[in-house]
């Protein structure tokens, strides 16, 4: 397709590289920016550059941060005896939204994916083991409930148990507010296995 402006075409191409953005949406976003004030567009561009310039991994938990160590790792209010291991920084954001977990995190940077050839050396496993130094009493493995998550959970359990820490995992089952009859078989099976006595 021929655009009358090379700048517009370039921006559309850049936008269409974003996840979930097709060419048509990219075009709409680019034309929207064209209509905005110059200072608004500059602010947005600066925010994007800042994202790359300022954010770096926390040297303790491997989460994304501007300050090293991150606000969670350096907070005196957090419980240092519980460590929650997650796959990605998004998972930290999701768990923090609950306001229930007061321990520390460790971000692995993904999960073991045997079929994709992603092994333990591709994850922050060594960094996790270095953190088990006597202050940590429990490690919660909060992996995604899929085969890759299971592989990671089993592997980490094998590594962590001999270090004398309690290892637990998140429960799996019916989402709150959901209907039992609409739950799929795999979830229902796991929910039955993970039932608790009252």
């Amino acid at each position, binding site marked *: 397709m021929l655009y009358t402006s090379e700048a517009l075409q370039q921006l559309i191409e850049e936008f269409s590289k974003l*996840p*979930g953005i097709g060419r048509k949406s990219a075009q709409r976003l680019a034309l929207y920016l064209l209509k905005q004030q110059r200072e608004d567009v500059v602010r947005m561009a600066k925010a994007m550059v800042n994202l790359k310039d300022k954010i770096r991994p926390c040297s303790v938990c491997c989460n994304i941060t501007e300050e090293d160590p991150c606000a969670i790792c350096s907070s005196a209010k957090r419980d240092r005896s519980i460590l929650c291991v997650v796959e990605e920084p998004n998972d930290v954001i999701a768990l923090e939204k609950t306001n229930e977990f007061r321990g520390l995190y460790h971000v692995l940077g993904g999960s*073991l*994916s*045997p*079929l*994709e*050839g*992603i*092994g*333990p*050396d591709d994850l922050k496993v060594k960094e996790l083991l270095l953190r088990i130094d006597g202050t940590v009493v429990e490690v919660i493995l909060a992996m995604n*409930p*899929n*085969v890759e998550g*299971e*592989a990671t959970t*089993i*592997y980490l359990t*094998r590594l962590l148990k001999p270090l004398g820490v309690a290892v637990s995992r998140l429960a799996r089952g019916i*989402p709150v507010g959901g209907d039992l009859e*609409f739950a*799929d*078989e*795999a*979830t229902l*099976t796991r929910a039955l*296995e993970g039932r608790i006595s009252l």
Partner: protein
Amino acid sequence: MIVTTEAVVLRTLKYGETSLIATLFTRVAGKIGVIAKGARDRKSRLGPSLQPMNHVTAVYYYKQTRELQLLSQCDLVRSLKGLTDDVERMAVGMAAVELVDAVTPAEEENAPLLDLLLSTLATAARATRNPGNTLYYFETRLLENLGFSPGFHRCSHCGASLEDAASIHGLHVSQHGVVCAKCARRGMGIEPLSAPAAKILQRLQEIRDPEAVTRMTLSPQVKGEVAGVLRRLLVGHVEGLRTLRSEAVFSSLLQSGSGPLAGDIQL
């Protein structure tokens, strides 16, 4: 056309924000690629069933002109939970699905191979000991299914009977079989094969019940030899098959273990 079929999920790939692209090994059409729109959404019923190694009933819209078919339903036939409870069992399951993905062409029906895959996965999931042996069983039957059944009971050169494993003196990959002492002396490209490993290979070819292989206790040396022979035969006959990604990962996971993939298989 709407197709309803039994299948095993071979692999999945994240696509877009919430979708998955999956490779299914189906009973009616062999290996097919499907797109499951919204499968990663929490509300979707497709995602939980659409996990590698799962035995499912899939419903998809088939159109000859497109590469990826549209998956509309995917229900779990039976839970093979045992495969995801243990690294060794998972290693067998992953290697089996990866092998099927690697050796089968797209859209070529092969119901016996699906049955073999299902029985292997079910046996490995239930196995309380030696789950890794089920992979040797699977590879032996896979070679047979592909038409490259190796000859472990006769010399592949002179045809002499080698029922007694002690009289086997080597393996000839390109002739997919073993050789006698006489042929081994003058043959080119013959690899050494110990009598205990040869005996196990003969036994694997005779066994028709995958449960029986889990009762076989093999020494690490024999395991390594058997695994190596089966893999060399597969690599030697299936174009493009080299290393399995899952095995490389599980080898590192099982470094301290005694599993079948704990450095035993030499690729």
